[in-house]
């Protein structure tokens, strides 16, 4: 919905509290994480078992072996043993296709509650070996399939539908491959301590045009304060798009924002106490709607919630700062 221009930079400025987890003392958890965002798939982190197809294949091998013994066919033995050995090579190849990869957590885009949070994992292949058909899954559902060429990196992602505002924990995911034969599946089960910020869901029933959001006594939804133009300055990230001087931009090939003086920009306060709601969650939803609306109208708005106050401002950074405060309230 609201895609930040540079979400990585943005989120690095926001202080997301580390997601606390209870340490689980069993060997699988030790192997599968949680890791702090980065893990190499070493020997003990890759598991491998035959697939259903692989089990059928072993039945075929058994049949061939019994047939060869019964009919005393030497070449039957040759075929049986060749297929059995090929199965063994298939096991090694499948294992090789995933082992040694490095997994790195990437920062993800915050979502509004109810939307799907996308978690990106960077696969880093340090070897001179192409990796094929790597599948990421969670709870048995395949999310993404990628190849990862030799000496390269590849993004793989999975999604979780957010049900609650706050921090959504990605939990463990499964990265697996059945390549090259489908007889075996090699997988790893990792937790990269990934989490996604979930903003409260906007309240659909809030009538923003009627609702009084100001407290400063300076109610003006049309934004009169912008009328007294003062000078142009270079565009900075977070500047209101409507203040860009497009004429100058066309001439100079650079973006300039118009600065206004005279009357101060009108500050709108979104106050916790002003909002009538069923409960706190509902209140947060309404506040979210108001923030979205204010940002859309390019107003200066501030946030006032218990324990936290954000001074009026506008722009993407401010917008996400406000929503983050609501999400983590």
């Amino acid at each position: 919905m609201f895609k930040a221009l540079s979400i990585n930079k943005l989120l690095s400025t926001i202080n997301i509290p580390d997601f606390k987890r209870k340490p689980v003392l069993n060997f699988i958890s030790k192997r599968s994480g949680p890791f702090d965002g980065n893990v190499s798939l070493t020997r003990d982190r890759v598991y491998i078992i035959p697939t259903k197809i692989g089990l059928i294949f072993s039945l075929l091998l058994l049949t061939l072996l019994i047939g060869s013994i019964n009919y005393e066919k030497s070449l039957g033995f040759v075929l049986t043993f060749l297929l059995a050995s090929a199965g063994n090579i298939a096991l090694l190849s499948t294992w090789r296709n995933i082992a040694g990869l490095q997994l790195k957590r990437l920062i993800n885009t915050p979502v509004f509650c109810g939307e799907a949070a996308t978690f990106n994992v960077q696969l880093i292949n340090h070897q001179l070996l192409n990796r094929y058909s790597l599948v990421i899954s969670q709870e048995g559902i395949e999310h993404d399939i990628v190849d990862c060429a030799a000496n390269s990196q590849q993004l793989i992602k999975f999604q979780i539908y957010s049900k609650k505002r706050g921090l959504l924990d990605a939990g463990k995911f499964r990265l697996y491959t059945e390549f090259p034969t489908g007889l075996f599946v090699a997988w790893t089960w990792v937790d990269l301590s990934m989490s996604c910020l979930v903003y409260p869901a906007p309240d659909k029933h809030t009538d923003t045009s009627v609702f009084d959001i100001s407290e400063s006594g300076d109610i003006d939804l049309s934004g009169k304060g912008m009328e007294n133009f003062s000078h142009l300055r270079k565009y900075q990230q977070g500047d209101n798009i409507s203040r860009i001087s497009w004429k100058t931009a066309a001439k100079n090939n650079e973006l300039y924002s118009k600065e206004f003086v005279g009357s101060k920009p009108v500050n709108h306060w979104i106050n916790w106490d002003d909002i009538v709601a069923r409960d706190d969650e509902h209140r947060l939803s309404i506040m979210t709607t108001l923030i979205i609306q204010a940002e859309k109208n390019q107003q200066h708005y501030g946030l006032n919630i218990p324990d936290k106050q954000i001074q009026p401002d506008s722009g993407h950074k401010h917008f996400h700062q406000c929503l983050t405060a609501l999400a983590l309230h």
Partner: protein
Amino acid sequence: MKNLPRQPDSNILFSLLAGVHLSAMPLYTGMPVSVIFLLLILSIWQLTIIKNNKKNPGKIVQLLIIATSLAIILYAYGHVFGQSSGIALITLMTILKLFEIKAIRDCYIVIFSSMFIIASNFFVSQSIWLILYVFLVLIFLFSILITLSDRLASMTWKPRLKMSSQIIGYASPMMLVLFVLFPRIPGPLWGLPDDAFSSHTGLSEEMSPGSINRLISSSAIAFRVRFDGDIPAHKQRYWRGAVLSLYDGKTWRRNDASNKALHNITYSDDKTKSIQYRITLEPTNLNWLLSLEYPLSYDHAYRFSREAMLLTDSKINNVINYSLTSQTTATNEALFIQESHKNRLLPTDLNPQTLNFASTLFNQSDNHHQRYINNVLSYFNSNAFIYTLNPDLLGDNAMDDFLFRSKRGFCEHYASAFVYLMRAAGIPARVVIGYQGGKMNPLDNYMIVRQSDAHAWAEVWLDDHWQRVDPTAAVSPDRVEQGILNAGLEQNKLPLLFTTNNSFIKNAAFLYDSFQNKWNQWVIGFDQKKQNDLLRLLGFENTAPSSLIFLLIIFLTTTGLLVAWMLLKQKPTKTDKVQHYYNLFCHKLAARGMPRRLNEGPKDFENRILGELTLSATNKSAIVFIFRAYRNLHYGNHHDSKLVDQYVKYIKNFKLHSV
């Protein structure tokens, strides 16, 4: 969200169809035309479905196809659950499976069925060519497996084939270890269907006109013999097979009761007259072995019947080896009352002319057996009888037709007529079928006996023992003295290999046969005994199954680790190599008092070197090249192996000269 079953695309279906046909290809020569035709029609149908992306036929149509296929197999083979019909059925069903492929999983079933079909090829042939072909087909089938698991379809056919060849290639050493060390259980584990291994050229249980004649054009090997010591002369090399003593006017058959009582053979004490030899017999699908007259010692697994046939418990459907000692001077004195009666039986109401002739000739011989035999043989000799591969068709009174009208026949005609004349005079006589002759392979000192050496002769009860009489020798003495090639037969009916005078072809054929012999001995005939022999040869004295399994585990682990190491060893990456040599270059410079500063990029470092040092022209150009190459390789996207080689060479040869 749910994982949908994946659908195979048309390329996969094409290759599956090709895979089934490639797997069954060698079997097609032995299949009835109707079945081949059915396979062809179904395949063309499938091709049009796949090509035009049409829907597969519905349930009812599919059932109809299955019913038709079963009916055609029943019509072609007479039954459904035999061996050859079973193979045809599996091939058909696999092709039919392609009509109802709904998901990727079904494709695996088709591939595994194809592997099963490959195995059934070995019922027909176990030649080295077949196994080489099988390797290629397996590479193809594994490439389909790769396609199926390549979810993004990012591989083209070339790397796919390369990868599947790699899988089969790496599997081969482990296969060898398993083949040599896997404990062999002597089969069969259960009874085999009657028509198992039916597709052999060779002698059968009975003899009628034409049954030996048809073998003459076959150069197929019947068996190979390695003699310990002297090789008996050509005319003594009567390889005795089956004794046929029942005659119905057309066909000679074995006497079913003949297996039971003991034989009665008198051997001489003179050991010098013994011949020791070892026979490697090709599969015959019969339960009797071939031997020279008469075996003195033989394997305990075999029985010796009172008709002096060497019998096995089960039909021989594999290459087998057996050692024998025979004594040509031994006499067979077994004639029991029952046998004496049976060996004089003739069909009633047939061949009146022959019976007349026999009684007249017997009277003329003063009822003397030996004289009568001689008279019969000289009758063949002096009445323009012709030894030919093109005998005339004989009527109901076959003997009359042959003896007095056609007078053209092959060995089965002469043996049959001779025994008939003997029995007509009341002398016990019987037909023996087997092989006569054999040719040494000069390259490897063993004898090859081919199907074209098949022969039939007679045995007569004379002077209280059975005596071999070969009436063919009366007509064509060269057949017995020198072999089938020199018997004055029609050359165009003999195998080309024998009639050619080209010594190169002949030598090549012998060389090929030596190789074939080795293949038979060490691969096809590789049984428990051979396994023990081989292990002893390699120095392992204890060949009990338990120690065999121990050896197997050790060798398999070693090979497995070796293969795993080869497969998993990490190759240095492109960046590794470039960086490695850059480090070496910096090291060389540092040794000459020009160390790279921490956090100094290649550009700054280069400028500093060029600025601070006074360099020779070669040094300068080398440094400029190395830095430029390093920047290109390290920061550039594409990998230029030529440039890497040059870069490595420059750094290796780099030496900073102080000016």
